[in-house]
């Protein structure tokens, strides 16, 4: 799946952890490219490996196996100093904006810190840059710079986190559930802001979320993860219009929305995500899949292309059954 214009490529990436002496794969053997300028949405339930993927990309921690290539360089081959240089162009923002900010420091110092670490000595220039990014994210520098994080709401703290990520002029920002802790009205402000910043700074985004409606709104392509693997990948509009994997379809049926007043939504997906310590044989989703057959337990489905740009890991994808 390696594309010529890929800003970031993940090849055969596996991340393993040890739990009570047992090794298990939080992510097993995933491949994906992120094209320059695109927003890739990564969606799934807790424990599916979406955050682990985001962190493995910035090598915190580095993947156990496989390769992450960013701007043509294999990140696993870089030494500590080289990796520090690359990280300026590869930023991350987190779910809880308040705990991501040092409560003892002033906003101007928090936002300027990456510049200090990068060795920018000119204090006046640093202040100019801090003002510029704060204005860009919609925080008034005159009132905000000398305040501390607790004096701001969650939404404003997330704006400050985005300003801090932007100040190094990154190419790619990993957004790990950036709006999940925010109220819906503030969530809309931050999603609009991310779109604006993407335009203004020419960013590429990896947007990780459990919320399918949010992911659809911001993404060009969407990848659905389940128990450490991709089950589906397609253009954002396409995957919602014609989900091929039963898990994607099940997830979409469970979103309560305003069009379903009093009505029963589709049947809820049964059961819970299995433990990664002991994943099911064959297809990982088969234990909850309404369409599972014998073959699903015996043979793991390959992640294959069913139409241009639309990949699915399922022996019996929904779109093929209908036609």
């Amino acid at each position, binding site marked *: 799946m390696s594309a010529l214009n890929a800003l970031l490529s993940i090849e055969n990436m596996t991340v393993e952890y040890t739990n009570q002496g047992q090794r298990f794969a939080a992510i097993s053997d995933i491949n994906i490219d992120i094209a320059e300028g695109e927003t890739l949405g990564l969606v799934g339930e807790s424990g599916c490996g979406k955050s682990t993927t985001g962190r493995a990309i910035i090598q915190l921690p580095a993947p156990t196996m496989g390769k992450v290539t960013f701007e043509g360089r294999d990140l696993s081959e870089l030494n500590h100093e080289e990796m520090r240089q690359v990280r300026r162009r590869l930023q991350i923002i987190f779910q809880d904006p308040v705990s991501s900010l040092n409560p003892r420091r002033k906003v101007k110092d928090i936002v300027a810190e990456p510049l200090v670490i990068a060795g920018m000595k000119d204090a006046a220039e640093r202040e100019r840059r801090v003002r510029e990014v704060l204005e860009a994210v919609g925080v008034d520098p005159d009132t905000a710079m000398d305040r501390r994080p607790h004096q701001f709401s969650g939404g404003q703290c997330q704006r400050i986190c985005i300003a801090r990520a932007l100040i190094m002029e990154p190419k790619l920002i990993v957004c790990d559930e950036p709006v999940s802790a925010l109220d819906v009205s503030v969530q809309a402000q931050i999603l609009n802001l991310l779109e604006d910043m993407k335009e203004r700074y020419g960013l590429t985004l990896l947007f990780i979320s459990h919320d399918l409606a949010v992911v659809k709104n911001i*993404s*060009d392509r969407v990848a659905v993860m389940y128990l450490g693997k991709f089950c589906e990948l397609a253009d954002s509009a396409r995957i919602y219009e014609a989900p091929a994997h039963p898990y994607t379809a099940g997830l979409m049926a469970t979103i309560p929305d305003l069009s*379903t007043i009093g009505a029963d939504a589709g049947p809820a997906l049964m059961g819970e995500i299995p433990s990664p310590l002991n994943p099911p044989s064959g297809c990982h989703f088969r234990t909850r899949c309404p369409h599972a057959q014998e073959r699903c337990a015996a043979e793991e489905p390959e992640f294959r292309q069913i139409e241009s740009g639309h990949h699915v890991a399922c022996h019996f994808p929904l779109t093929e059954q209908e036609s």
Partner: protein
Amino acid sequence: MDSKTSASPLLEVVDLYTHFDTPRGVAHAVDGVSFRLERGRTLGIVGESGSGKSVLSRTIIDILAKDGSVLNQGEVRFEGRDLMALPEKDMREIRGREIAMVFQDPMSSLNPVKKIGKQITEVLVKRLGMPGAEAKRRAVELIESVGIPDAAQQLDRFPMHLSGGMRQRVAIAIALAGEPKLLIADEPTTALDVTIQAQILDLLRRQQVERNMAVILITHDLGIVAQYTDDVVVMYAGQIVESCSTEELIRRPRMPYTEALMNSAPNLADPPHTRLDAIPGMPPNLLRVPQGCRFADRCPYAAEKCSTEMPALAHDEDSSHIYACWYPLEVKEAVSA
């Protein structure tokens, strides 16, 4: 909501105030709230953080601090009795039996060092005076009824052995053990995954129907309100700003805040990169609430009057749909079928 309705409802909250005395001033968390709930109905209370929805529920079952920092006024009438006037001893009889509550974080309501079975039988023995053996049998039934497999084996497990969804099922089983007439669920699925959320909300609805129990479902998610409630109250900055049947609210919101809340959430029917109608600004500081409409600063339709005079809750003739707005949204005649 019609004051002329004769028979007494299960729950009637009348002009309720909950203020917090803080070092920085008095916070108007709940500010003059009135509503009623009939037996067997599900009422959604929807609002953003700080709107007062959780404080309201905690005031109803009276579990806020008793150190003088909480200032209460108003009435909470449950089957005609004013709970605010009851001594704590009597209130303890009501809590867990007549009115039960399920919280957002099931871990905070479960005892981490006690087996699940014990936590359920305790309610049955202490609250209902059931003999031990019968309580144990009933506990298995309860665990089964909330959809936990291998019920008999689960009784010997501790909460830490369960997933978040399973813990919430146990919390619901404990809440149901006392056979309450009213179950208050405060963001019961906010900490859970969407597939588990659907399972838990379906479970609550099934139990509500089977037991003809009234439910107050507190949530920030209008989608959940639309799908799981009969009636709805919208709260903003400590006040009710709109209230009616759920269907009426979704189809014909009158208060601009309700409309703004609906429009700010991304809609699955819209194409990718659709610009969201974010609500500008933030809710007011509850320590210094404005004198006029509390939404005026963020309202696209606000006029001068809105920031000087607070609109009272009112309703149109021949309608029980109430709203607090000087310039309510026009009722769009149903265009869609």
